[in-house]
């Protein structure tokens, strides 16, 4: 069982959430080339290690949030406050 740390509701079972997948910066749709746009749509980093990802708290606060999880061990680490530098090597 995976306990997902919602910033509002605290740790809850993964089945309370919808998984949003890898968090990537969305290119500007008016400026991106079709190639860039499709790479944003389809390509994945898929690391076996720390991954920045999005979850939706479906049965709780109904908010989206990003966290970092290690996809090899499934441990979470607290996501830094927006604007601060990531600690450690991602």
């Amino acid at each position, binding site marked *: 069982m995976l306990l997902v740390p919602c910033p509002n509701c605290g740790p809850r079972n993964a*089945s309370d959430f919808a998984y949003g997948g890898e968090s990537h910066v969305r290119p500007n749709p008016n400026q991106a080339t079709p*190639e860039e746009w*499709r*790479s944003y749509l389809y*390509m994945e980093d898929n690391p*076996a290690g720390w991954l920045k990802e999005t979850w939706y708290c479906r049965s709780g606060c109904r908010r989206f949030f990003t966290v970092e999880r290690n996809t090899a*061990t499934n441990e979470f680490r607290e996501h830094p406050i927006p604007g601060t530098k990531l600690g450690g090597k991602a």
Partner: protein
Amino acid sequence: MSLLPGKKSSKPPRYSAAGLIVKGARKQNWPRVWRDVPLKKSYDVVIIGGGVHGLATAYYLAANHGITNVAVLDKAYLGSGGSGRNTAIVRSNYLTPEGVAFYDRSLSLYNTMAADLNLNVMFSERGHMTLAHTDSALRTMNWRAEVNKLQDIDSSVIDPSEVKKLAPSLDTSSNARYPILGALYHPPGGTIRHDAVVWGYARGADHLGVEMHQKTEVLDILVEGGEGSATDAHDGKGAGGKVTGVRTNKGDISAPIVVNCTAGWATLISDMAGVKLPISTRPLQAAVTEPVKVFLPTVVVSGSLHVYVSQTDRGELVFGASVDPFNTYSVRGSLEFTEELAGHVLELMPGISKMRLLRQWAGLCDMTPDYSPVMGFTPVDGFLCDVGWGTYGFKAGPVSGEQMAECVATQMTPKLIEPFRLSRFSTGALVGEKGAAAVGH
């Protein structure tokens, strides 16, 4: 390149009842069926991943094209990935014409496999039934049936009374919580012993001179002259580069051609060459019950209930579902899976409520956005992929091996796998198979 064409079609020796008796009477051990030889410094082709895809590619390179200076490398043992963990379902009733043609070729190779490899692969053509519980599911079944019929595939939509006749244990009454409205029935579908397929290809390839190296992990791919990878712009990897070999835990190997057949680990390998893939890794779980008398003659799939079931020759029920809901490389089973599975199976077959689960397990699946694979050349010269097999790659093993071998030998993309090229994700020409592959693997 010095890949000499030439045909060699000799098969490995046959197993016989007489041999069994003689060996038993003399208390002899069975010899190992593939050699354990030292790793060489160079090969014509290096295949990463000793699952059904890697082994089939190696086998057909040798059998169809006479290319035998080939090494298959696996970081663990042959069949340790999805190839030894799947629920062994084969079928060709897909949704797109490209998919149907491709999987149908695989089924015909499976049909002659026992004779081709001189090994009983226990192919059981028991029929495959995909239930529809909603009008929209029924519509998809009709759509699939029409696409299938146009390509001469035995596939049709049947009504609940016919479903009941084929599988009397199913609750086909109209007061079920999710009443069965009909089903897509595909008689040529069935199951096949997955381990035997892995061993059969390994044995066949070995017999033709291919080397299998277990516990040989690829740590890096050696590429020269590329525009740089995402993490290092000066490492010479990525588009425009040329493969020169691989680095393993047992030393460097030089090879002009490296084929990535690592399924759930596919992006880790392609990252080593500087090639990005549209793949995320998800576990798929399965479970098996204690054995009981045979009562379920066909494979039954329910997309709406996220479950499928078949009964083995030994009498166990084998269950599967859809992939776990988040990316991970961990293959730990979960209680949610078992609970949901049991609930849904009992909706379909209330009669088996007293049966006990023996065990459950998981394997890694390399999911693509359109539920179709990624096959053939990449922007790095000499680095080929046969990945993106998701939850449906076992049945595709033979045709993938055959086509990838042709791709390597001729240096051209065969027609059958042309739709599955990596570049479809930059042009937008996706091959959407979700409607036929999301639950029924």
